[in-house]
């Protein structure tokens, strides 16, 4: 019986091809819009996640605890993590690298060239932390840190701005009037997530920074420490170990709050992922307004169709069609229209978003979501928009329907 009903419905909707197509258009555009919006949102999410991952998703940040005043979170507290703490962290199980930084902004001078940059006082592990590698020359060593050597390892922006086509290795640059010998350059990192220049930096040994460029009355204390876990899976375990170790080293008693805070990179990534998800959903909701418009279109067409086909309905009833048959047929017609419309819309949405991704150079995922959404929307829209006309058809009195001109 269902097969026969579907066939009747199919013949009916294909009898008025242009009208059926125009009716379909609303739902088609609606679903295509939803698919494209969801894909766009997911593409953004993917892009952001990838950018973060390329920076190293198994990084853990350790910073001074936030000051809490009257329940309001505020500025960071005083530095509490020391260079020796970081050395101890490096020995923990599951830790691949541990680094720290002190930072100062300087105008770097080479010959007649000068350029504004950030100088990071750090240790050799900073390369591991930033997921970067040496291009030319070498990184300074732990020994260089110990003896506070005036060595500099520079990013590609520095290379281009100060040296042009010259080889920078072995050249002397000046930071705040102090001479530093360039012993290495770091491979190009490209633009950051927000379009910031990731190659504009100079690494020098931490001790050198404190002694020559940015003195401090507590030089052992660092503003920020970084730990790289051996894998993303170990992040939680490593974070726990860090907390345990630091509490012991800082002699914190039970019940006392941490004077540092540990934030794994995965936290950031998850936050950004959530934002991306919310964005996707928001876009999908906006796009689904066009679905509502589309379903009103179907309802409108079906109502017209029922009126137009009043005599046909009367004839069918006279020839033995039960009421539920008539209702199901009209319902099947609207479901078919919305189903086909949303199927084409889905394909179209996928094609357009893939095309846009290729042109704009972003990877656009094909979303299972989009498929699920469009199929279920098709069925729901078909039922909702077809129900009223179908009931109208069902309730027609055959005598009146046969007399209808």
């Amino acid at each position: 019986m269902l097969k026969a009903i579907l066939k009747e419905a199919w013949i009916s909707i294909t009898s008025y091809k242009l009208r059926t197509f125009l009716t379909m258009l609303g739902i088609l555009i609606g679903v295509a819009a939803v698919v494209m919006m969801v894909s766009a949102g997911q593409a953004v999410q993917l892009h952001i996640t990838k950018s973060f991952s390329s920076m190293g998703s198994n990084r853990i940040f350790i910073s001074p605890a936030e000051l809490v005043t009257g329940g309001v979170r505020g500025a960071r507290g005083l530095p509490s993590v020391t260079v020796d703490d970081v050395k101890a962290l490096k020995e923990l199980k599951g830790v691949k690298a541990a680094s720290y930084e002190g930072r100062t902004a300087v105008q770097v001078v080479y010959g007649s060239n000068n350029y504004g940059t950030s100088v990071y006082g750090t240790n050799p592990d900073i390369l591991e932390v930033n997921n970067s590698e040496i291009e030319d020359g070498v990184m300074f060593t732990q020994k260089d840190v110990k003896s506070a050597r005036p060595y500099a390892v520079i990013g590609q922006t520095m290379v281009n701005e100060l040296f042009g086509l010259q080889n920078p290795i072995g050249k002397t640059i000046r930071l705040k009037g102090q001479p530093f010998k360039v012993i290495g350059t770091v491979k190009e990192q490209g633009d950051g997530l927000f379009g910031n220049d990731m190659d504009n930096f100079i690494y020098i040994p931490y001790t050198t920074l404190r002694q020559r460029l940015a003195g401090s009355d507590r030089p052992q204390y660092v503003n920020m420490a970084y730990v790289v876990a051996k894998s993303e899976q170990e992040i939680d375990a490593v974070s726990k170990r860090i907390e345990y170790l630091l509490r012991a080293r800082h002699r914190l008693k039970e019940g006392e709050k941490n004077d540092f805070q540990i934030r794994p990179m995965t936290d950031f990534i998850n936050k950004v992922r959530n934002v991306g998800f919310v964005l996707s959903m928001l876009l999908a909701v906006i796009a689904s307004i066009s679905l509502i418009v589309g379903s009103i279109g179907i309802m409108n067409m079906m109502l017209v169709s029922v009126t137009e086909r009043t005599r046909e309905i009367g004839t069918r009833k006279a020839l033995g069609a039960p009421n539920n048959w008539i209702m199901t047929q009209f319902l099947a017609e609207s479901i078919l229209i919305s189903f086909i419309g949303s199927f084409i819309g889905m394909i179209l949405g996928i094609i357009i978003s893939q095309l846009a991704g290729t042109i704009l150079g972003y990877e656009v995922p094909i979303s299972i979501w989009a498929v699920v959404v469009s199929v279920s929307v098709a069925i729901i829209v078909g039922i909702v928009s077809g129900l009223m006309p179908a009931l109208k058809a069902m309730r027609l009195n055959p005598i009146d329907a046969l007399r209808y001109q």
Partner: protein
Amino acid sequence: MRKTPVIEVKNLYKTYFMEGGNSQLVLKNINFKINEGEFVAIMGPSGSGKSTLMNILGCLDKPTKGSYVLDGYDIENKNDIELAKIRGQKIGFVFQNFNLMMKRTIADNVSLPLVYQNIKEKERYKRALQMLKKVGLLGYQKRPPSQISGGMQQRVAIARALVNNPSIIFADEPTGNLDSKTSDEIMELFTELNKQGITIVLVTHEDDVANYATRMIKISDGCKVYDGLRKDYSKEKETKC
């Protein structure tokens, strides 16, 4: 011929209730039987209640009062679903304006009643061809009805009325939209079918058309005023309403 009643109408009344509380008594105390194999013409002036009677006989409407038994089924206590089933299995309809589906093939039109009997497509097509042969239209099955003349369209409608092997065929003014020559052809087809044993009840107000029938029932003002052989009818034999 064996004489079993296909239709038995007793003390039948029909009142139309209109919006605003008005009502109109359209059929008054109608009684008759129609036996298997009869060919009956229902006549009467316009507005006398012929179509109303036909709708009740065709199970499209229910009497306000009285009983109606069709082929042994008492119609009185049947619901909509059961009435649809009876229409589909026992009754064939022929309409004044044919009521064919213009976007479908002639075969599809003829076999439509079988769709509602859950008969398989192949079998439906086979039966449609048999019926088209009966009405002399074999060869037209693949065409749409819009390509054939009115008389041929009415033949298609008759084939459709026959396809479910009904106990009786009801035709409300089947020649109303046809010229006299085509009308004669259609009436000859009905006569032919009646000779094969099919019971036919038709409504007409044309004497020429009624002459093909053997029996005549005349309705006037909602009352049955004549019921007898068509050839015996004369105005004087009518009873008062």
